[in-house]
């Protein structure tokens, strides 16, 4: 049922967000209306400001507000180590551990021919160029891709395209800290048993 033209328009736009269906969009729209003009102004200006300022880092394709992100431009970081991740948000998660001092490369997706995600649609070639160039400082690659078919295939492909001897590793797989054995799926448990130390 149509509400008012302006609310309908907002609902229409909100529905384009991931995970937001018609009912949810309606609830959000009414919420925004009830919050009043100040909230609406703050929300819309935040959205516009974000879209004007945030861009992909020209080196690692992570997200930042300058041409090169803070991590890539930081000379104190170890530029011989590159951590390859799927999404920009993965960078923040790994940074939060405080255990990694190298730089990143964001692929913005994984190889999946079934979903028409091919080499050209992902940020793979710039990574390979970054590694293969004659003056490349890169000596080590750490793959932090999700442990599933698409992640494994992407890793195998990138390894094939690398033409220099490098130290290559991937994140260990196993049991999360502090969890109960009974809650672990059998595939993970089987892998953890086989790779026990």
């Amino acid at each position, binding site marked *: 049922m149509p509400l008012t033209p302006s609310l309908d328009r907002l609902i229409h736009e909100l529905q384009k967000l991931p995970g937001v269906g018609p009912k949810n969009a309606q609830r959000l729209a009414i919420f925004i209306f009830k919050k009043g003009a100040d909230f609406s102004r703050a929300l819309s200006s935040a959205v516009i400001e974000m879209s004007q300022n945030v861009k992909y880092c020209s080196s690692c394709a992570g997200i930042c507000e300058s041409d090169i992100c803070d991590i890539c431009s930081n000379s104190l970081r170890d530029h011989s180590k590159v951590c390859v991740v799927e999404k920009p948000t993965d960078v923040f998660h790994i940074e939060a551990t405080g255990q990694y001092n190298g730089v990143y490369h964001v692929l913005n997706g994984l*190889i*999946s*021919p*079934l979903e028409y995600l*091919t*080499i050209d649609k992902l940020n793979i070639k710039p990574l390979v160029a970054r590694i293969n160039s004659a003056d490349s400082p890169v000596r080590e690659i750490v793959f932090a891709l999700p442990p*599933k*078919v698409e992640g*494994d*295939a992407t890793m*195998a*492909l990138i390894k*094939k*395209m690398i033409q220099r001897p490098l130290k290559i590793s991937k994140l260990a797989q196993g049991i999360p800290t502090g969890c109960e054995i009974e809650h672990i*799926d*059998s*595939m993970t448990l*089987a892998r953890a048993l086989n790779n026990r130390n």
Partner: protein
Amino acid sequence: MCLEIALSPGINLFYGMNGQGKTNILESVEILSTTRSDRAFKEAELVNHNEESALVSGRFLKNSLDFDISVNYYKNRKKTCVKNGKNTTADSIFGSVNIVKFFPKDAEIITGAPANRRRYADMEISLTDRAYYTNYKNYIKLIESRNAVLKQMSELQERDFKYGELMDLIESYDELLPDAAYGVYRGRLDFLKEIALYADRTHRSISSNREKLDILYHCSVNENTDKSMNLTENLFKQRLIFLLKKNLKNDIIRKLTTVGPHKDDIEFLINGTPAKNFGSTGQIKTLAVSLKLAQIDYVFNKTGDYPVLLIDDMTSEFDAERLFNIIKSISADMQVLISSTDNEIFKTAFGGQGINYFKVSGGAVVNN
């Protein structure tokens, strides 16, 4: 339209004319176990023409613990699953309840295409072995991805730059395939070995010890002339890598991966002769039943619980005496759902005792 049925722990017989909805009741239990139905090609087919969605809900009691499972199918979107009031994935529901079903189509496991036999083995193993199921799904995804790349390559010239790139991708899949493929191969071999043991025992007793049953696994990777010789892990992987490379040109032309467990077959031998080609109709029916009865032992051995048995329209397949021998041979600990057009023969054979009768008519059910 809504239907609610309370079942008894023993034998539940649904009887009525054809087309009244007896099989639907059995199908709904299958859906709660596997989240899919063998009868529907697409999920949307499970939804009534005039409705937007279809809901199957069940409350189960297993080892004195009860749990609820619901599967909701829609016309235009993916199914959703709920376990104990919480939304969850189809995978986490899959196998919560184990079933063994006797359907008229069972004979197709023996007489039908190889895909029928592979589906039979993969489904039965997956219900009790989660690691196999996960690995199997990965394997199929690898093969489908590889096939999608083969298709792209078939549309290009070898000298194209893109062709070389795609070749790198094929080689990446070929590195990942051996591990996943071996998991499928090993899982099926172990399953068939155990099933053969139980099924041969049952088959001998049904056939008054006249017929010996053997099950052979034909592996497309195994080029030994003696198919009963199984490959070691290393040999299997080596041969698969070799064959993937050797067949690549042909694979590109056919846009399909022509070697691997997805091309394997299972052969049933009665007294050393292939049942598919030389078995009589009676022998094949007996064999199908032996396989299903063996499945009960298999599930019990793996999980410590008896499965729920679904027996669909067996009166049309079997003479009554055989059917009763089968039902009586089934442990009293098992819950059984039977559909039949005839309730009189059951009343005569069981004297009306120990069976819960439901009359099904026009989609409605009356307990009597």
